[in-house]
C-alpha cells in the first residue's frame, strides 16, 4: 500500500471542489492519467450532492467555498459524513487552500480532512498527495508541520511521555514533523531516521489524529491569534 509502485496499478476516482473554474481546469490539466475525475462542484451544496452520487476515493477540497453554513470546506466534510466508496472505504478529503489562514486550515483538518496543501503545489506533488490520501495516509506540507510543532509546544521542547497523549507529540513524531518542515519528502524522512516509509506515514497519521482530537488550548488560540499558517 505504501510502496510507490503499487499506486500505479489502480486509478483514483477524484472529485474537484473549487469555486474557481479556472483552477479546476488547471488541476485537471496537471494530474496524470491515473487520476479519473468523476465529478466537479463549485459550492458546498453542490459538492455534497456530487460526493454522495459519485462516491469518489478522494475529494480535492477548496477551504473557501460559498454556500452551506458558511464554513466552506468544513461544511462539505460534515455534510458528506458516512459516505463511502464502492469498496467500503470512507471518502477522503484533501484540503487545498490559497489563504493559509491558520484558523481555516485547522477547521478543515479538524472537520476530517486527511491533509492540507497549498494551491501553488506542483503537479507531480499533487498527484502524490492525492494517492497518499487515497491510501488513507495523511499529507502534511512543511507549513502544516511547522504549525503543528508550534501549536503542540514541540518547538519549545514539550514532548509526550506516552504516545497516546493527545496534547503533545512524541519524540519520534516531533522528529518527523521537524524533517517535513525542513522540506524533506517522506522517503527522505524515512532514510534520515532509519525507519520505513510506512512508519513515517504512521507517525504522520498519528499527528493528524492528535491535531483532530486534541483539546489543547494553544491549538485554537494559536489558530485564532495567528493569521498565517
Amino acid at each position, binding site marked *: 500500500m505504501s510502496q510507490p509502485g503499487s499506486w500505479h496499478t489502480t486509478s483514483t476516482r477524484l472529485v474537484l471542489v473549487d469555486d474557481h473554474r479556472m483552477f479546476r481546469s488547471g488541476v485537471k490539466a496537471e494530474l496524470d492519467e491515473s487520476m479519473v475525475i468523476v465529478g466537479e462542484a463549485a459550492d458546498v451544496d453542490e459538492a455534497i450532492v456530487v460526493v454522495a452520487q459519485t462516491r469518489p476515493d478522494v475529494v480535492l477540497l477548496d477551504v473557501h467555498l460559498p454556500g452551506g453554513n458558511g464554513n466552506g470546506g468544513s461544511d462539505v466534510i460534515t455534510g458528506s459524513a458516512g459516505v463511502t466508496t464502492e469498496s467500503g472505504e470512507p471518502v477522503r478529503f484533501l484540503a487545498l487552500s490559497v489563504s493559509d489562514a491558520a484558523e481555516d486550515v485547522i477547521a478543515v483538518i479538524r472537520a476530517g480532512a486527511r491533509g492540507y496543501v497549498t494551491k*501553488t503545489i506542483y503537479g507531480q506533488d499533487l498527484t502524490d498527495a492525492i494517492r497518499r490520501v487515497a491510501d488513507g495516509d495523511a499529507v502534511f506540507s512543511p507549513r502544516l508541520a511547522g504549525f503543528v510543532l508550534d*501549536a503542540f509546544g514541540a518547538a519549545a521542547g514539550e514532548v509526550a511521555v506516552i504516545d497516546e497523549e493527545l496534547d503533545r507529540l512524541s519524540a519520534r513524531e516531533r522528529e518527523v514533523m521537524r524533517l517535513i518542515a525542513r*522540506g524533506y519528502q517522506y522517503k527522505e524522512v524515512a532514510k534520515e531516521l532509519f525507519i520505513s516509509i510506512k512508519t513515517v506515514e504512521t507517525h504522520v497519521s498519528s499527528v493528524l489524529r492528535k491535531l483532530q482530537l486534541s483539546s489543547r488550548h494553544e491549538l485554537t488560540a494559536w489558530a485564532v491569534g495567528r493569521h498565517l499558517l
Partner: protein
Amino acid sequence: MDLVPTPYELPRSAVGRSVRRPVRRMKRPIQGRRIGGVCVGLAEHLGLNVRYVRLAFVLACLGGGAGIVAYLFLWALTPQSLGAPAVAGADAVAGSQPAEESVRNLVVGLGLVVVGGALYAQQRGVNLHLGVLIPLLAMAGGAVLAWSKLDDAERDRWLVQDMGSGGRRAGLLRLGIGIALASIGVVVLATQGLGLAGLWSVGIAALAVLAGAALIAAPWGMRLWGDLRAEQAQRIRQTERADIAAHLHDSVLQTLALIQRKSGDPAAVVRLARAQERELRGWLYAGPLGSQATLASAVTEVAHEVEDLHGIPIELVVTGDRRLDDGGTVLVRALREALLNAARHGSPPVSVYVEVGLELVQAFVRDHGPGFDIADVPQDRLGVRESILGRMSRHGGSAGVRRLEHGTEVCISLPVRPASLSVGQPATVAEPDTEGTG
C-alpha cells in the same frame, strides 16, 4: 446620508425591489430651500409647484400659526436629501445659498421686526407687558439657537469637525447658550410676581413639564440617534472601501500592468507575481506584528530579499520567535549567505526551516541541486567557509553542510541566552510561499 451612492455598491434595484412597489418617502432637499427645505420637499412629493406650497404655508401661519406647527412637524419628521429637487419653481439661486445663512437671515429679520414693532407700540402708549414679552423672546431665541444645532446639515458639519475640537466646542457652546437662554426665559416668566418662595413650586412644575416633553420627544431623539449611528457606520465603511481601492490600485493593478508588459520574460513575471503576492498577504494578514524587530521577521525579510534577487521560490517555515539581538543578526547574515548559495548553485525548491527554541536557534536551508562537499570547494572560495562556518563559530554557534541524495542542506545553530527570551507571542510561521516539490 443614504442617498450618496458608493462606487462599490450594487445597484439598489437589483434584488428584491422588483416584487414590491418601492415606498416613496418625502425628503427635504438641501438645494433650493429657503429655511428647512420642507416646502420644496413637500412640493416634490406631491408634484406641485413649490410657490403654491409656500404660499399655502404663509397663509396657514397667518391663520393662527397652524402653518408654523405644520412646518416644524414636517421638518422634524422628514429626512434630508443631498440631491437637487426635481420640482418646478425651486430656483437655482437659492440653492447656492448656504442653509445656515438663510436661517440666520430669517432670525435676524424676525428679531428686527419684533423689536421695531415693540418700540412703536410702546411709543403709542400700548402696554405690551414687557415682563412677559422679554422672557418669551428669550425662550424663542434660545430654542432657535439650540435647535439649529440639530439640523441635519449642521449635524453633518459637526461630525466632520469632530476631528478638530475647535468646531465642536463652538457647537457645544451654542447649544449651551441656547438652552440657558430658554431656561432663564421660562423661569422668569413663571416666577413673575411670586418672589423666591414661589420659585420652588414653579421649579417642580417646570421639571414635570420638561419630563413630559422629553417623553414626547423621545422617539424623535431616538430617530436622530439612529440616523447618526447609521451615518457613522456608513462613513467608516466608505473610508475602508476607499483605502482598499487605493491600495489595490497602487499595488495589484500596477503589478498586473507590469506583468502584461513583461509577458515575454517568464522569470520576471514569476518574480513580480511573488513579490506582489507577498506584499498583498503582508497587507491583509500581517497586522501590527511586523513592526517589531524580531528574529522571525528578520529571517522573513532575508528570504524575501533572496527570492527577489534570484526569482526562486523559497519555502519558509519559522516556529517560535524572539527579540532580534546580536546573535540573531549573526545568524540571519549566515542564513542569507546560505540562501544565496542555494539560489545560485542549487535548484528549487529551496526550503528554510528556522526553529527558535528556548536555548537554541536552529536554521536549515535545503535545496534540491546536485549538491557539493565542503572538501571539494577550493580554499580561496570564502562564501561557505567564512560567511557561514567561520562566522558562526566566531560567535559561539556552529554550522555544517550536509550532502543529501537530492541537494544540499546547510544547518546553522546558535545557542541563545534564555534571559532575552521570547517576545511574548506563541509562535511565528512566516508568510506562505510555494509548496515544496520532490
